[in-house]
């Protein structure tokens, strides 16, 4: 059975959390891959974790997108390998050009850490297998730069192609869109549907003890897409 890779940039800080949650929920063998490595070591799936890669002093994710490991990840994705980017990982994937659009400073101009409701928009992508369209998930967010932005043509194309997969739900929650994301976008897929970027943290919602397990189906779908029988 293949193992799962969690990338480690200097400044990643959800790398341990992602590994812990994946191991616990999927039973997978999870290994870290250092940013300077250009070999993914035969991993079946790659998780790009949250944090502040290289301090995020330039633009969030901008330097990480240029690291040796991301060249390997791009090639891996082009071969159809599953890639899940969470929070800073989503920022890295957009900066690397693997997903369209960008993550701009939150509308409120402040870091926001709380649990929000997102609605699953698609269930016909492998990275969402097992979830139901319309299903509502309670997931924590924690970011300073989470406002998804793109031009209208890109947004229209994303919608038309069914690539907006997770949306905040202001209707269910008065502060439901925590960052002012365009069209309430919380997560999109790219490539052939094998690259998913999302701002909420499923790895923080993987244990009832910590307040919820709504992230578990997303982690399981990622592992299964990677060939791990979770």
């Amino acid at each position, binding site marked *: 059975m293949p193992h799962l890779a969690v990338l480690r940039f*200097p*400044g990643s*800080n*959800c790398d*341990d*959390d992602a590994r*812990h*949650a994946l191991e616990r929920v999927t039973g997978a063998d999870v290994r870290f891959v250092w940013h*300077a490595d250009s070999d993914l070591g035969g991993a079946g799936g790659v998780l790009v974790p*949250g*944090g*502040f890669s*290289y*301090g*995020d*002093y330039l633009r969030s994710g901008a330097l990480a997108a240029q690291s040796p490991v991301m060249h390997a990840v791009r090639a891996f994705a082009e071969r159809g390998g599953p890639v899940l980017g969470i929070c800073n990982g989503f920022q890295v994937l957009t900066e690397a050009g693997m997903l369209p659009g960008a993550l701009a400073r939150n509308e409120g101009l*402040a*870091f*926001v*850490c*709380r649990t929000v409701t997102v609605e699953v928009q698609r269930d016909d992508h492998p990275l969402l297998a097992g979830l139901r369209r319309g299903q509502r998930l309670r997931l*924590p967010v*924690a970011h*300073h730069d989470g406002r998804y932005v793109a031009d209208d043509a890109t947004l229209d194309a994303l919608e038309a192609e069914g690539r907006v997969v997770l949306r905040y739900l202001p209707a269910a929650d008065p502060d439901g869109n925590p960052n002012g994301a365009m069209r309430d976008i919380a997560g999109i897929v790219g490539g052939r549907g094998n690259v998913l970027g999302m701002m909420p*943290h499923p*790895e*923080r919602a*993987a*244990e009832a*003890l*910590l*307040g919820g397990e709504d992230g578990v189906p997303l982690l399981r779908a990622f592992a299964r897409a990677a060939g791990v029988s979770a």
Partner: protein
Amino acid sequence: MSDRPALPPLVPDGAWPDAPVGAVPVGVVVDRTKSATFGLTPEEFDQVVGHLGRLPAAVEAAMFGALWSEHCGYKNSRPLLRRLPTEGPQVLQGPGENAGVVDVGDGWGVAFKMESHNHPSAVEPVQGAATGVGGILRDIFAMGARPFAVLDALRFGDLATARTRYLLHGVVEGIAGYGNAIGVPTVGGEIAFHPSYQENPLVNVMALGLLRHEELQSGTVGAVGHVLLYVGAKTGRDGLGGAVFASADLSAASDADRPAVQVGDPFLEKLLLEACLEAIQAGLVAGIQDMGAAGLTSSVGEMAHRARLGVDLDLARVPRREPGMTPLEVMLSESQERMVLTAVPGREDDLIGLLRRWELDVVPIGVVRDHGRFRLFEGDELVADMPVGPLNDAPTYVRDGREDPAASAARERALDGLPPPADAGAALLDLLADPTIASKRAVYQRYDHQVMTNTVVLPGAADAAVLRLKGSDRAVAATVDCNARYVGLAPRHGAALAVVEAARNLAAVGATPLGVTDNLNFGNPTVPEVYFQMAEAVEGIREACLALRTPVTGGNVSLYNQYRAIEGVRAVLPTPTIGMVGVLPDVRRRATMALARDGDALVLLGEGAPSLGASSYLARVHGLEAGAPPTLDLAAAERLVTTLAGLVQAGLVDTAHDVGDGGIAVALAEMAIAGGRGVDAELPANLAGHDDAARDVADLFGEAAHLALVAVPEAQLAAVTEAAEAGGVPCHRVGRAGGDRIALRAGALGLDVALADARDAFERTIAEALA
């Protein structure tokens, strides 16, 4: 790995500069008339001359001045701090190292400590607070512990003023910016407002770290021949003289002191943290020390002092950010994110290689000698030579204190004759909107409080933070507390109440208290009225910590918290912040304050009547800071803490909240707001001992030292009552949970407000201030 520029040889070839013992350093000599320049009194300067046998060079005078400052040398507080209890079977490391450590079971220890960054935050709140977080985190990982939680105790002036909003914004941004980036959750704390902090806010940061017992580290230079490794950021002129700065009066001139505030880089600190912990786990580290206040001077000096050895440093090797720095500037720089390490003999290359893999600058800067001196060379030139012992052993002062008659008069002021509130419901809403009591949600939502995925109880949900230990059933709880109004009116009594409040808060989540770190924030110790507050507060902490079996394993003293107001020098309220750590044997058995079920019985636990003296109600409604703080019976407090923690640990109680600011009415309202369900309660007529109108007010809004509220299903009520009474803690059933109103009655006085209105009052104040 990426290409790197050529580096100097990893281990020097043994060609360290040397000089015969007794050689006189080169450099400008200073005399007694310059003592104040170096933060020394003329008498202290004479002592320096005595220790050296000659006049000091400027760098030597500056190093003595820094290490003999209050911030590093505790010269006014050390005799008092010796009074504190420091021992117990749970203590793995007491005071004297970078942080204290207590045993939490299953082979785990928790390193914890609190430190202040008050003066830097007054001048530049964002960087002042950020570097406060960075500094305390380094203290924690220098113990070999992985930092896993931060709590902050913040004090500001009048929230209605632009200055306070500026400081609040800045401090919150600084804490968030540093803590969020480095990936350590900020899980709790407290924020209080009082005009005395208007110009001099308090920023006390407590950090906790987790270690296996066998990973416990020491800040030592190791043994003769060991090489000192400088790791991390380059040395610049920032923070120059910060230790002296932190110990001097704040004045208008402080605005010109901006260069004394350091700038933090959480990214670099994250690399330092990961590299140091990896090196420790690999068994490569013999000694490790953070460069905090007074930089290289204090870090290397303390390491040498602990080992009772000497050190030769070659300043020419110290990585510098700018040219032309003098030895004095290099030695006193407070540039952030720097550590000093010594390698296990024979493993130097492995250690240096590991640190460089984390992209860190690593430079050998000195060598350990047996001469007992702290010597500095600049290339081949000897520029300073001081005995390690006296340098690290500041003279101490025991001063005369006397109570400010205004404080005793305010405390003894008769409080009868105050009219009861025309509308008790309006008074409750007013108290809930008080900035000190109001919800801090808008603040903690700016902090990443969930990273590391251990946060079991979210901020605001309970009286203390609760963090699970992965791979164990256990959990750690932590809280920071101090009601400074109590301390101002009655320092000994008030400081003991701060300890008791912290223990109550831990018990209310189900934790058994283990240990204390204290941050003593006071004014100028040479003022007898301030010294009295310090001495009395330390006695109060001592008495309460002995009664609660919570030794003090470390802490920090911040003096000269004062400013020049039009009417003269004004000190902050005496604020001995108490940080307390406890353990829950089974994380599944814990409590929050949120009412969980309609129909639960509300039960008041504990003894002693609430009283209006020194209360939030008096301050908010009558504008009075007067009266004696709540009567304290330490034995009763200990019984309540033990019993309440026991009820939660036995699985009998999952909803608990202590009675604190604003009394029973505010406590019940907070439980209702947190749980999203109302309460209907009638307080027993005899609670305050009388049944007159003034006593009814005290029942509702008075404060108490050893009362708590719990909510339990009817079916469990008998078991809870029996267990509480077996622990010697009286129980009163006061009402039930449910509905959408907060309805309370005490004798002739009653209130009935909509839960939604209470929530709005509670949530609005801080959210608007931060908007």
